[in-house]
């Protein structure tokens, strides 16, 4: 009898165990949230970046980029709009494996998913901005 119970338990454990691909954890998965929630959460990350440094993040949004002539650097961003579509919040990202722009990047306005580690980059003026580092980028 104990052997049967043990076998049933093993079978149940096997049945209810999650697929290893499903157990991939994000500290903050913005892609699971509604637009209103994403807007609120990204606002928190922009306002209080210190709380989120090192967290693994996934977000879905619109691809955007701009070239800063002073810094001679191109910035890439994942932008989300609020429910009224009049305001937008976004996070800059830096891909883990360098790509060539524009060839290997999505087109402006394309829907993208970005995964990576949250960080805060300080600039020379004493300010700074949040950025997702070691990011993987997928175009949808």
């Amino acid at each position, binding site marked *: 009898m104990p052997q049967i119970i043990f076998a049933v338990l093993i079978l149940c454990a096997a049945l209810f165990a999650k697929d290893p691909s499903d157990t991939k954890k994000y500290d903050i998965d913005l892609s*699971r*949230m*509604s*637009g*209103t*929630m994403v*807007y*609120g*959460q990204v*606002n*928190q990350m922009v*306002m209080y970046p210190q709380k989120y440094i090192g967290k693994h993040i996934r977000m879905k949004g619109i691809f955007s980029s701009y070239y800063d002539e002073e810094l001679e650097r191109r910035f890439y961003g994942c932008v989300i709009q*609020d*429910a*009224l579509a*009049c*305001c*937008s919040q976004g996070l800059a990202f830096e891909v883990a494996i360098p790509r060539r722009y524009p060839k290997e990047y999505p087109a402006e306005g394309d829907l993208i998913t970005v995964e990576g580690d949250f960080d805060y980059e300080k600039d020379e003026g004493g300010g700074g901005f949040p950025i997702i580092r070691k990011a993987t980028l997928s175009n949808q």
Partner: protein
Amino acid sequence: MPELLEKLSFYLDFPFVRYAIIVGVLVSLCSSLLGVTLVLKRYSYIGDGLSHVAFGALSIAAVLKITNNMLLILPVTIAVAVLLLCTGKNARIKGDAAIAMVSVGALAIGYLLMNVFSTSANISGDVCTTLFGSTSILTLRIEEVYLCVALSIAVLAVFILFYHKIFAITFDENFAQATGVNTTIFNLLIAVIVAVIIVLAMNLVGALLVSALVVFPSLSAMRVFKSFFAVTVASAVISVVCSLIGIVVAILAGTPVGSTIVAADIVAFGLFYSISLIQSKGV
């Protein structure tokens, strides 16, 4: 359904969602209490006028780069509320005309200032979110939550302490005066409370939708209940429930918070109107 509950419980883990719910409940409770008095005194539209004044003051605060904009918005809104509510019958420009003038004037000046002395890269976004309160309640700082809690407690305390006096001047100001109630002081008190509530409610539903928080719960309650006390209690319950439903639906479905709350208020009004029709046919 279990998926929705799971999602809701996931969202409730975020502090900013809890702040939104706390502020939403408090603001809707306070606005509904005073809403009954304002509707009965024929000042239903004052919420709209004062919220536009608050918007104008917000623009001035942005132009002057005042960090804590409440320091300017609250006194300006209170001053205009006192002017509108306390000048009464002696005013050269009477009630509704004065409210209309102040409302559009403040809105226009606010927008003009925001455009001429632009301090933001996204003016239309700032204006849009202030007027319609799309997400402002989800971007509250803890200090703003504390301020809202303190002001709400003050409003509730004043309402409970002076309930009988407010009741008297709501229904018959002349009679109240004849019985020894200092109507000038109490009108002033109501004006100050209304201004505080309007400023608080701007964060919840935005300037353009503030009137809905003041008017809808009271009118819904008045369809079914007949005594001042019953209408006040029912109005408070309806307002809080609609705000909770509005906030929850907005975060689950990704809709704008302010207009979702007002939509819930409209549904409640339809429901209470139907109940009143059934009641009258039954009698």
